[in-house]
């Protein structure tokens, strides 16, 4: 089960509302490489992981991603506070506002809502861990792109923190993959799927 702790993993305090920036940041909530997808990917993949270490990594990184989902949502919430109709129209936030007001909805910056089609659970640990390593790099690139587009120091401070976490997770998934390969027949680890073939 999960228990909520009333504390963010890293502080989020945005001084200046900026709905135009929120339109971009929202992709790290509900975009194809965002935090909702990361949490769903790892927390659903863990059942077919064949050893405890990999089950633990998927559980603990998946849980951290729920915390990142909350941090990105907090940024969006704070960037879109106290907006006037004029600001909403001039920033181009109107297309989002008409459907969601200033609520936090998991969608890509393009407006495409979060979809499980942007992630996979293949039920094969080698395949899934390779996807997870790619997912961390895709998220890292997205944070790089946000840092190119944003000049708000309060936002960028959090973006840099989250970017670092992608790199740490990539490292941990790489170790999980190595451990898995070592346990299987390392001369031919594609010989079988340990979650299916007995």
């Amino acid at each position: 089960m999960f228990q909520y702790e009333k504390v963010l993993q890293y502080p989020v305090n945005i001084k200046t509302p900026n709905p135009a920036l929120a339109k971009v940041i929202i992709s790290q909530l509900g975009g194809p490489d965002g935090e909702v997808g990361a949490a769903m990917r790892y927390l659903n993949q863990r059942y077919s992981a064949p050893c405890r270490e990999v089950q633990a990594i998927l559980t603990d990184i998946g849980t951290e991603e729920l915390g990142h989902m909350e941090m990105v949502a907090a940024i969006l919430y704070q960037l879109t506070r106290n907006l006037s109709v004029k600001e909403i129209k001039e920033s181009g936030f109107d297309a989002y506002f008409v459907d969601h007001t200033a609520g936090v909805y998991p969608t890509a910056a393009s407006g495409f809502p979060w979809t499980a089609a942007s992630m996979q659970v293949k039920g094969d640990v080698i395949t899934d861990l390779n996807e997870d390593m790619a997912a961390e790099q895709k998220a890292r690139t997205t944070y790089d792109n946000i840092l190119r587009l944003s000049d708000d120091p309060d936002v960028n401070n959090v973006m840099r923190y989250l970017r670092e976490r992608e790199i740490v997770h990539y490292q941990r998934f790489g170790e999980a993959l190595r451990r898995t390969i070592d346990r299987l027949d390392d001369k031919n680890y594609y010989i079988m799927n340990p979650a299916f073939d007995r």
Partner: protein
Amino acid sequence: MENNRQKALRKLMAARFALHDAELYLDSHPDCQEGLRYFRAKREQMEKLRNEYEAEFGSLTAACAKADERWEWVCGAFPWERGES
């Protein structure tokens, strides 16, 4: 300016983070003695800071919230509000 609650919270968040990062490391290095020592030290530090914080500023989990006169869980702000983290 940070108030006392924020100061205590930031210290707790830093210790909480170090502990979490050590957890991930131990998942893939379960026999690393140096890692285990680091984790034990961080856990002790985090538990001390959490107990001090919760005693003064309220529980971080609903299960541990005070339930005497009024349900404490709804008395403190949630952390996504500006100034609450």
